[in-house]
Every structure is written in structure tokens, then in C-alpha cells.
């Protein structure tokens, strides 16, 4: 039996059975139909304080402001958006690395925002994270073996002598590292290999949910594909549910079953990858997709549909629809009446009063819709 099979068996997964794909691209759930993660009206405001002796709150950065979505078992949910849209804050809230201002995160049916002590620790075992920077997310003074074994130490697992080392070496082999490099230090590895170490550490506790926050954006193109393939392979092998955060829209399309687009702390559109990329309804999704440079010089002559101006400050976001200050379709109603996130009948849900039409999608040159 290979190390991978052994690992899968211990993880309670049938060996050699691939996850089935249902029609419509929804992966078969590994258990009940209940979503693994339910996020409801999640809000995170970071206070802005002034004053030296007497600190007083003068405002708040509304990093995440009323976000709701589900993550189904076994699927990959992508979260895209530009700097400051709240995608990383959302991930940290799901991990309970941050305390939400209000709202709920239900993991496996239980609200984790109020958990404390040992019950929180138990949940943390099921949720693991891979970080963007493979250089700063590994302790340079610890051997790779010690880094990957740390989750076992924290949770008191595999305590027998030699057992821990064996488990770590199996993990290293699973993610494509040489198990003999157990005693090496992070600086002896390249960027791509370091990211593999991060993946091994995240998989050590056989989590149910893996959150990958920009896992490949610090890597070179040729190495990026290695890590993306590894993540897909691991997901298949261990039946993982994945939340994949990235700003690269092509990578997100490749990796994800469903995609949520965020703008200034809100989800503006969410839906399966196909409909979202082929027929975006929210003008912001359309603008993002038309701005992506495509490696095809034949598309050069086409003027991209440029958004004017910059993203407004999340400390002072625009009223009602937050995109109305930059939206080419904005009307008076958009600054008064907050559009709800609702099904637009073409496969995605969008928060927009005046969603894009097919003609407009063609006109603004959405580069995925051809």
C-alpha cells in the first residue's frame, strides 16, 4: 500500500475511489446535504481610534459588512475581489482568527463565533489554512519535520516514539516532498517546495475544510501550476472542502466550482463558475472580467471596458449599492436603495438593480464570454 493510500484510509476515505461529479458541476457530497459552512450576515468592523491617553473611537473600517454564503461539502468556493474588498478578513472570520462584530459562522451545523476553549480547539482541528507567502509562513529556525509535526503536538496526536516522524514523512511524500528532507530547514527549499510544506502542515490533522488564501500568487508561473495541481489532487484524495481566495480570475475559474465576487466588504455576485464567467450580471463582475489581460494578441484592438477612479475607502463606503460611484449603469435608485443579493435567473445571484444584459456583456468585452 502506498503512503497515500494509507493516509487516505486513516482519513476515513475509501481508497482508490474518485469523487463523482454530478451534472451541473456540483460535486457529490460526502455526507448530508447540509452545507459544511454557513455564513450569515457576517460583519467585521475594525475601529479607528484617535488620542494618546484617552483613546476614542472615531470611525470604523467596514472590512466585511453583511456577508452571507454557504460552502457545500466537497466543493471549492472561490472568493475574488480587489485589495481591500474583505476577502481575507472573511477567511479569517471563518477560521475564528478574528472575532466578528456580528453575524454567524456555522461550521458543521454549530455556530463557532461563540465557542471557547476546548470546543473551539476541536473545531480548529477541522479547519486549516494555507497562506500566501511561503517564506514568512514557515518558521526559519524549525526543521520542516518539526513544522509539519506542530499540529500533532498542539492536539496531542501520534504521541508514540517514532510515530510522529513516520506520520510526517508520509505527509511529505503525499505532497511530493522527499521524506528524507525531514531534518532540513525552510531556506533549503524553493518557493514551490515551501508551499508544499504549507500544504502538508495543513493536511496533517485531516481537516474537513481547507482555506487557501492566495496560495500561488507569490510563485512563478511554472511553479504555480505545480501547486494548483497538488491542491486539486489533495482535494480529490481526501474529499476536502476548499475555500480558495485569489485575485487571479483565470486561476479561480480553473480551481473552483462556485465563485463569490466581493466588493468593499459585500458579496456582489455569487454562482457556479460557468454562468458567472459566461454571463456576469453584476457590472463589477463584468468590469473585472473585461480587465483581465488575456494571452492572445488577437484581442488587442478591443478597448477594455475601464472602470474610472479607485475603490472608495472602506472607512467611508458609499451609501446603498457600494459600487454606484463607479458603475456605468448607476441611476438615482442605486444610491438610495440597497440591492439585495438575489437570483437573476441565469445561474448566478447578483446584488444589482440593473443587471447586465447579454448585449452589454458582449459590448464591454468580457473576455471569458467568447
Amino acid at each position, binding site marked *: 500500500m502506498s503512503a497515500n493510500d494509507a493516509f487516505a484510509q486513516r482519513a476515513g476515505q475509501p481508497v482508490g475511489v474518485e469523487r463523482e461529479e454530478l451534472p451541473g*458541476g456540483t460535486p457529490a457530497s460526502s455526507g448530508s446535504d447540509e452545507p459544511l459552512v454557513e455564513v450569515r450576515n457576517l460583519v467585521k468592523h475594525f475601529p479607528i481610534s484617535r488620542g494618546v491617553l484617552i483613546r476614542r473611537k472615531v470611525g470604523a473600517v467596514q472590512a466585511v459588512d453583511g456577508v452571507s454564503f454557504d460552502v457545500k461539502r466537497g466543493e471549492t468556493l472561490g472568493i475574488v475581489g*480587489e*485589495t481591500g474588498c474583505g476577502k481575507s478578513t472573511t477567511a479569517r472570520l471563518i477560521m475564528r482568527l478574528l472575532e466578528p462584530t456580528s453575524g454567524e459562522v456555522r461550521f458543521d451545523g454549530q455556530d463557532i463565533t461563540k465557542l471557547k476553549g476546548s470546543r473551539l480547539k476541536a473545531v480548529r482541528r477541522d479547519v486549516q489554512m494555507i497562506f500566501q507567502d511561503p517564506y514568512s509562513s514557515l518558521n526559519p529556525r524549525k526543521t520542516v519535520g518539526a513544522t509539519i509535526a506542530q499540529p500533532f503536538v498542539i492536539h496531542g496526536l501520534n504521541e508514540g516514539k517514532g510515530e510522529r516522524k513516520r506520520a510526517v514523512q508520509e505527509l511529505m511524500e503525499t505532497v*511530493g*516532498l*522527499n521524506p528524507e528532507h525531514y531534518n532540513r530547514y525552510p531556506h*533549503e*527549499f*524553493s*518557493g*514551490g*517546495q515551501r508551499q*508544499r510544506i504549507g500544504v502538508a502542515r495543513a493536511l496533517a490533522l485531516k481537516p474537513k475544510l481547507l482555506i487557501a488564501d492566495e496560495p500561488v500568487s507569490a510563485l*512563478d*508561473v*511554472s*511553479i*504555480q*501550476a*505545480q501547486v*494548483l*495541481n497538488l491542491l486539486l489532487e489533495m482535494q480529490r484524495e481526501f474529499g476536502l472542502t476548499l475555500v480558495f481566495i485569489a*485575485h487571479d*480570475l*483565470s*486561476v479561480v*475559474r*480553473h*480551481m*473552483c*466550482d462556485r465563485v463569490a465576487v466581493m466588493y468593499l466588504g459585500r458579496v456582489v455576485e455569487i454562482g457556479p*463558475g*460557468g454562468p458567472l*464567467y459566461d454571463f456576469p450580471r453584476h457590472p463589477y463582475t463584468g*468590469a*473585472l*472580467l*473585461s*480587465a*483581465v*489581460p*488575456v*494571452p*492572445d*494578441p*488577437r*484581442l*488587442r484592438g478591443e*478597448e*477594455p471596458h*475601464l*472602470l474610472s*477612479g*479607485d*475603490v472608495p475607502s472602506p472607512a467611508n463606503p458609499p451609501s446603498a449599492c457600494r459600487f454606484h460611484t463607479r458603475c456605468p449603469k448607476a441611476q438615482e435608485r442605486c444610491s438610495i436603495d440597497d440591492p439585495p443579493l438575489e437570483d437573476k435567473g441565469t445561474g448566478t445571484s447578483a446584488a444589482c438593480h440593473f443587471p447586465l444584459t447579454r448585449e452589454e456583456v458582449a459590448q464591454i468585452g468580457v*473576455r*471569458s*464570454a*467568447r
Partner: protein
Amino acid sequence: MNANEPLLKVEDLHVEFPTEDGVVHAVDGVSYEVARSATLGIVGESGSGKTVSSLTTLGLTRTQGARISGRIIFEGKDLLALSEAELRTIRGNEIAMIFQDPLSSLHPFFKVGVQLVEAVRVHQDVSKKAARARAIELLGLVGIPDPNNRVDEYPHEFSGGMRQRAMIAMALANEPKLLIADEPTTALDVTVQAQILALLERLQSELGMAIVIITHDLGVVAQVADDIAVMYAGRIVERSSAELLFAGPEHPYTWGLLKSIPSLSGTRKEQLVPIPGSPPSLINLPSGCHFHPRCPYSQPDHARIDPQLKPVPGEPSHGVACLLEPSVRQRLWTELGDGKTPEQARASVGLPEPQEALVTASETVGDEPEVGL
């Protein structure tokens, strides 16, 4: 000056940095030309020498103790033979550069306007008042709203996109003939990136300057470059017009790059084909073809023979440095285009397997290239 002469001509450029660990061969024999008002895109991964070759053009590697050989001819003058004082009259004046990180390229203590005025007055004998008027004009040119007031703001008051616009304004201060843009949009969000690329294109057509754009993003070069040079481990491995390069790439490394990026319109089903291993150490470069340890099609003699950049038969402007037969390359690319893996393509073309087993991802290929700049 002959109008048909290229504006910039780099000939057999070598740049080496002696370090404690050995000599870093950052640029290992690079030649290229940039025509007037044209855009050359230099594509490569970290450590491919794309930045060092451009910094050398501006004489910015001289102080690093670099050993430089070759020729860099700009408007008939060999830049490598000029003194530092002579070079200073060209740098920032006839050749300007913009960098990846606009925040660390602007001085945080000085107002944007003050920095622009300085850039103007270094090369032009004008009054402060005239220079300030020019600064406001430049900010307007690069699309900064309300330049009359913005000119008195500090860099931290500008957003990322506006800082890059301010950098571009500074580079344009003296109407350069050549603008070198080193990863100008890498630190920016995608919608801002689109704005900056559109701005560069507009300025180029208005001012008629040539641009060298250095990037790792094949999408960006496809959008803005007329000609493309693909660099790997200090050398240009393929050079061609943008159309030809994307329609019929010739070098296995270029194939590898194109096959490792997911497409925006693609589906989840397509398989990415990564290039095995990682880029080599620039201290200890592989013998022969620098790419051979990672190339799925390498043959025994590829470790001995140094490939030269030669024209592709029938495409005189399309150069490739590869030891495979042109007909074999063509068949391989056709097979890859049909969705075959490199191994399947190699088998159906009838190439023998590489003799040394290809490096796998779990093995280190030398050390990480680290060029301290």
C-alpha cells in the same frame, strides 16, 4: 541618424556579480533590438535576468560591482562606454524607467509635485515656477484628477494606481525616447492594471516613445507588446512578434509557460501542465542548453551543445534557441495543442526519453537564484 536604425541595440550582453558563494551569471549573452516607437515585452520568471539586463542599460548595475561585457547602443552611442557623468544626461532624460512598487519608488517625505519639479529641473534649465506648471501638466496627462491640488499632496495620500501614474508622470517629465517599465502593474489590482496599460498605450501613441516592458505575465505582453523576448536563466530562448509567438511558439520553455496558465474561458476539466523542477541557480548554470534539466524533450547532446538563437525556417524574424529539429518542434507543438501531455507528445513524435530522469518537483535543482539588487 538613420531612421531605420533601431533606437536601442543590445549586443551579446553579459552581466556577472561576484559574490561570496561564487559568480552569479545574471545575464548570459543577450542580444535584442528595440525599434523607435515600438514596444518590446521581456517575459521571464524570477531570476531569468530580465530586470538586470534593463538596469544595466541605465548603468544602474555599475555600483553593484558587476562585471559587464557586450555593447548597448542607444542612438549610436555605446552606453557601456560612457562615463557616469555622461550617462546621467541620458538617464531620466532620454531613457526613463518605472518600477514595480510605486510606493517605495516615491520619496515619502516630499510632496509629489516637489519630486516632479526636481525631475524636470535636473535636465531642463527652467524656473521653479515653470517646472511646477510642467508638473501639473504631467499629472493631468497621466489622468490624475484635479492636478492643481493633487500636486501638493504626499505620496501616502495617493492610491496605488495614482502613485503608479505619478511615477509615469515623472518618467515622462523630459519626454524620453525610451521608457523601461519593470513589472509596472504587478503590484496593482486587475482593474487598475487595465487603466495603467491603457495609459501606457495612449502615451506611446501620443508621444511616440519606445517602451520595454518587463513582466512575468503573458497576458500583459500579449496585450501591449509588438515584439516579445522570452528569457530563461540569463538568456533569450525565443524572440518574435507577439502574433507569431502566441500563434506558433517554438521553444519548449515557452510551451511550458503557456500550458501552465489556466485560461479565463477554459473549464475546470482542462489539466495544467507544470514545468517540472524549478529555475536553476545562476551561480551554477546547467551546461549546454540551460533548460535541458527541465525539458521533457531533451536529448543526450543537449547537455553539451550551447543552442544559439537562430531564425525559424520561413519566419526570419522569429528566433529560437533550441537544439530540436524545427520539424520535430512543429509536430510536438501540434500534439500539445491537441491536449496531449509532454510525454504523450514525445512518444507520438518518436523522440527517445531523456536519458537522465527528469527532475521531479520534490528535488531541488540547485539553490534558489538570488540576485541581490
